[in-house]
């Protein structure tokens, strides 16, 4: 067969290529919230980019200086709204750290760990589901939401809320859990364990998904450290750092679990696929913690009786970090002895994780830019605070 005739005017060497500025966001389905990035492109290739954040700034830190500590817990819900339990826990631990002799009841500690880990699973399910959707796979999203729904139902029975819980509070938790809730958590553990295989079949081993994510957006260990990246993004680059193991808070030192890290199994170490796989594996490790905690949960009070009346931490400063589903969430709390904080600073993991976007997306295709943003799994609520 003869080669098709191509007019000379259409030869690739004759096509002019020039740079263009492309604005993506702030309202864009694949920027995961109101995140705006201005991209300098040459055709489909990203030459440079600049991130703009702040569209969701709600003065969280300023609010904390005008409402009481207990009311501030409610505001922490709205930081990383997909991991509210973790946010509540971090802030509560920070306030408790200001006291010298506060003892948190064992039952409360167990409930906190169970809720934080269930919430991590729910958050990773959403991350995985929407990541698949960014790449073009709709079905995994529905499967993820089916399972996430079960966790939200458990939370609804525990504290009446499905998203912003305001459940973990300084001194313990807001309400006790009863046997029916413990049974529901046990049922969920049994139900969810075999589901990981489903996600692997649907997404992890899907050839299209692997090709879209492997070798894309490679984040080197050095760059990750310099930008203070934490959580699954850091572990995806092969760094075994997890605060639950390195600097245990609450009662995490009692539980047996692994810390999954990226291995570059389908491409390069630190690529989008590695970050994705860390999340998939972390869900099973979180499930192991839930199973252990729920089997050991003791009877007793669910909050301390040492706090009476208004919560007035003594004068002082405290800094606390917990391993949230997106990385290290920290609170720097300064108290001057009143029931209102003098200063609260939130160290948000997504703020660090998204700040390196310019560096890892240089030279990528625009479609890969979407894959990279999705793999970093940001929540704008905590970037902008």
């Amino acid at each position, binding site marked *: 067969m003869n080669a098709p005739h191509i007019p000379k005017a259409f030869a690739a060497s004759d096509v002019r290529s020039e740079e263009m500025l492309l604005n993506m966001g702030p309202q864009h389905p694949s920027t995961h919230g109101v995140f705006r990035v201005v991209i300098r492109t040459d055709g489909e290739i990203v030459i440079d980019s600049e991130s703009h954040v702040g569209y969701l700034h709600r*003065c969280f830190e300023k609010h904390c200086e005008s409402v009481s500590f207990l009311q501030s817990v409610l505001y922490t819900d709205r930081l990383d709204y997909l991991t509210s339990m973790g946010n509540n826990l971090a802030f509560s631990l920070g306030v408790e750290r200001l006291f010298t002799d506060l003892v948190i009841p064992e039952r409360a500690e167990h409930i906190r760990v169970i809720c934080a880990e269930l919430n991590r699973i729910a958050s990773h399910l959403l991350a995985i589901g929407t990541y698949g959707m960014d790449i073009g796979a709709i079905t995994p999203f529905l499967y993820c939401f089916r399972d996430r729904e079960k966790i939200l139902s458990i939370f609804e029975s525990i504290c009446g809320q499905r998203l912003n819980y305001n459940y973990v509070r300084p001194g313990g938790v807001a309400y006790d859990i009863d046997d029916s809730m413990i049974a529901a958590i046990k049922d969920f553990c049994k139900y969810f364990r075999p589901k990981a295989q489903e996600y692997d079949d649907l997404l992890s081993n899907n050839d299209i998904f692997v090709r879209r994510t492997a070798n894309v957006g490679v984040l080197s260990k050095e760059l990750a450290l310099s930008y203070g990246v934490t959580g699954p993004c850091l572990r995806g680059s092969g760094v075994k750092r997890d605060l639950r193991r390195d600097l245990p808070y609450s009662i995490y030192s009692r539980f047996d679990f692994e810390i999954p890290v990226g291995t570059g199994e389908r491409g390069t170490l630190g690529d989008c696929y590695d970050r994705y796989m860390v999340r998939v594996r972390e869900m099973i490790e979180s499930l192991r913690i839930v199973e252990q905690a729920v089997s050991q949960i003791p009877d007793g009070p669910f909050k301390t009786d040492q706090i009476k009346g208004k919560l007035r931490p003594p004068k002082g400063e405290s800094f606390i970090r917990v391993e949230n589903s997106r990385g290290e969430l920290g609170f720097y709390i300064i108290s001057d002895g009143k029931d209102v904080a003098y200063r609260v600073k939130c*160290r948000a993991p997504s703020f660090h994780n998204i700040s390196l976007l310019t560096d890892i997306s240089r030279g990528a295709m625009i479609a890969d830019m979407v894959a990279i943003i999705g793999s970093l799994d940001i929540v704008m609520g905590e970037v902008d605070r």
Partner: protein
Amino acid sequence: MTPDKVHEILKAKHAQAVSAFDPNPKHPSIKIAPEFWRVVAKTLRDDCGLDYLVSLTAVDRAAELEAIYTLEVMDGARCPIHVRVLVPRDNPLIATVEDIWRTADWHEREAWDLMGITFVGHHNLVRILCAEDWEGHPLRKDYKSPDTYHGIKNNVT
């Protein structure tokens, strides 16, 4: 890297720079004179191995503004140390460390935006969380929120 060790190294290398040291195991902190901050920061990263800037907290201390750099070693025992740099409120200038810890770029922009500390030498010190045309620095204690913004009335009392 324990706080005592960090203090020892800094004392040996920059004796004048260290103005206070609090070894409190729950919250160790070192106070550094602002004029030495850049050289001390290099020592902290290269000699003390504190390669991870966890957080930068800006605090309004009435006559002074304080920047608290929380630092840690990434590969090793986790033990954050807080480095305090205090500058006068009417002339709040601190040298930038964005080239020492790259994450300082956005953190310094945030501290400038919300607290009004100027980081000298920063390549792009513009507002990050507030709108570009916002006036004032909201986290200062004497901040008054504007009555209107682009015709939108402020009904918060």
